[in-house]
């Protein structure tokens, strides 16, 4: 059977219009120790740019010492094209999942930064996966 993740919301970044520049970081609380990864579900309001240029880079950093130090974990750069399903249906939400292989870590937090390259409206929900 396909593996189904249990998602637990850890952080919500309300949908808002973002102007160019660095936003955040938006920091989660301490994540559960038994963790296989995290997922960020993005939302837009249907006004997402479609000019083909990069819109923003979302960067996740991870801390294993309750926020005293942070290291880069993952990033993705979203482009100015409509969000769709694989079949081409336009949607306003997409998911980005990232695995973690150091399960059992206590005192772990993540924080999200957004480097906005062109004005967009974006929100996000950060969840832990177990």
């Amino acid at each position: 059977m396909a593996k189904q993740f249990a998602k637990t919301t850890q952080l919500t970044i309300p949908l808002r219009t973002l102007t160019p520049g660095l936003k955040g970081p938006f920091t989660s609380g301490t994540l559960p120790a038994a963790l296989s990864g995290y997922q960020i579900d993005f939302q837009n309001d249907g006004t997402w740019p479609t000019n083909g240029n990069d819109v923003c880079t979302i960067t996740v950093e991870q801390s294993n010492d309750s926020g005293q130090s942070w290291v880069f974990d993952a990033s993705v750069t979203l482009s100015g094209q409509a969000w769709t399903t694989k079949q081409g249906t336009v949607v306003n939400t997409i998911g980005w999942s990232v695995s973690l292989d150091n399960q059992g870590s206590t005192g772990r937090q993540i924080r999200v930064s957004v480097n906005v390259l062109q004005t967009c409206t974006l929100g996000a929900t950060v969840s832990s996966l177990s």
Partner: protein
Amino acid sequence: MAISVLQERETSIGGSSASSIALAFSSSLTSGSSIHTAGGTLNTATSLSASGSRNGTYGTALDTINDTNGNAQYRAAHWRFDNSAAGSETVTVTPNTSASFLAICIREIGSTSGYDSAHNASNQTAPGTGTDALTSGNMTPSVQPGCVSAFSFDDWSGSGAPNAGTGFTAGLTGWALGGASTCLRTEFKRYIATTALPATFTAINGTEGHITLAALFKEASSGAMTGASALVVGETGTLTGAGALAGSSALTIGQTGSLKGTGVLAGASALQFGQTGALAATGALAGTSALLIGQTGALAGTGALAGTSALTIGETGSLAAPGALTGSAALTLGASATADLPSGAMVGSSALTLSASATLSAFGALIGNCQIIFDASGVVPSLQTTPTEVPAGRRIRNIYRVTIDGQVFECRTLQEALTLLDQAKQLAEKVAEDEAIWQIPRKPPVITVSSRELRKPAAQAKREIKATYDRAAVHAELRMLFELSRRQEEDDTLLLLM
């Protein structure tokens, strides 16, 4: 250490076009590891590339698969990077143009000497759910041992990650591609033969298309522990490989240890065995290498202990090899030892110290400025001078050996030997003066000599000593007769008085 996957991670995004996706390894990379990376995206992108923050570009993809069947429209590729630098590494996959459903999976393969020049990939539209029905196709290892590292995923609907194939160790599942379930499985298998083999998986949904990507990696053996590496093995340890322990490497084995390989312990390497240890190799302990064995130890190999190498064995020790202990090598054996050295052993300024009973047997051993020291009993089967070059016109100097009644006297010169024979004659004269010992006739001594030049003087000495003893015997007999005669006259005188 056997080749293995040290760590792996994955990430993927759903239906938003992305121009790149990056993922860091959770832990720092081990120096020398290989990185096996897979990436994929909708095939609106016509190519993909991969690079690392520390190691740079991962080069041309090993395979790129473009699945245009059914609902797939997906393109996937995999790359390898060998001999990674140590430290943190973030891997980035970049499509040539922004595309959605971008995904990446990264694996660190440790104890490897790198990619084995064999890879394969497949695109199966309806593989079925039979065991091992998903296959990359065969790959042929050039050496063994090694490992297969593979990825396989359902690229149609992502309805389920396949299971690992028979004999493979399952890795992670991932690539949810924005959905709730995963579609990717990784796997690993170590092999010990060079027969061709595929990476196989078992599909969960056999009616959907799958892409499988696989590559072979070699297990590290040759050239292991170069540079300033250090290896500590708690108990039994075996290190096999050409060029092992080169440079200033150090190897410590707590108890039993074995080291086999050409050129082992070269350079300034050090090897320490807590108890039993064996070192067998051509050119072993070359350079300034040092070998210390706490108890039993054996060293066998051509050219062993060359250069300024040092070998110390705490108790029982054995050293057997042509050309062993050349240069200024030193050998110390704490207790009983056998140094069975063939021709040319211990040349140069080598030193051999044997604390207790020891045997040294070899032809031409201890040439040059070598030293041999026995603290207790020692056996040297033969001792003879070694011819050395001397200025023209000078004689080659020999040892003159004189044996008298089994007692050996060695003299540096002929004159010294002749003096010894004269002393023997004088001693015979002195002995002859002692009347008491002549109650029983005395035999002359047995004298043998090693040199032709001494034969005549020795024979003359024997004749003179025999004559001395003969005269002493005649004098003793006459004295006895005179005594008998005197006693007879005394007896006659007493009879006349009575």
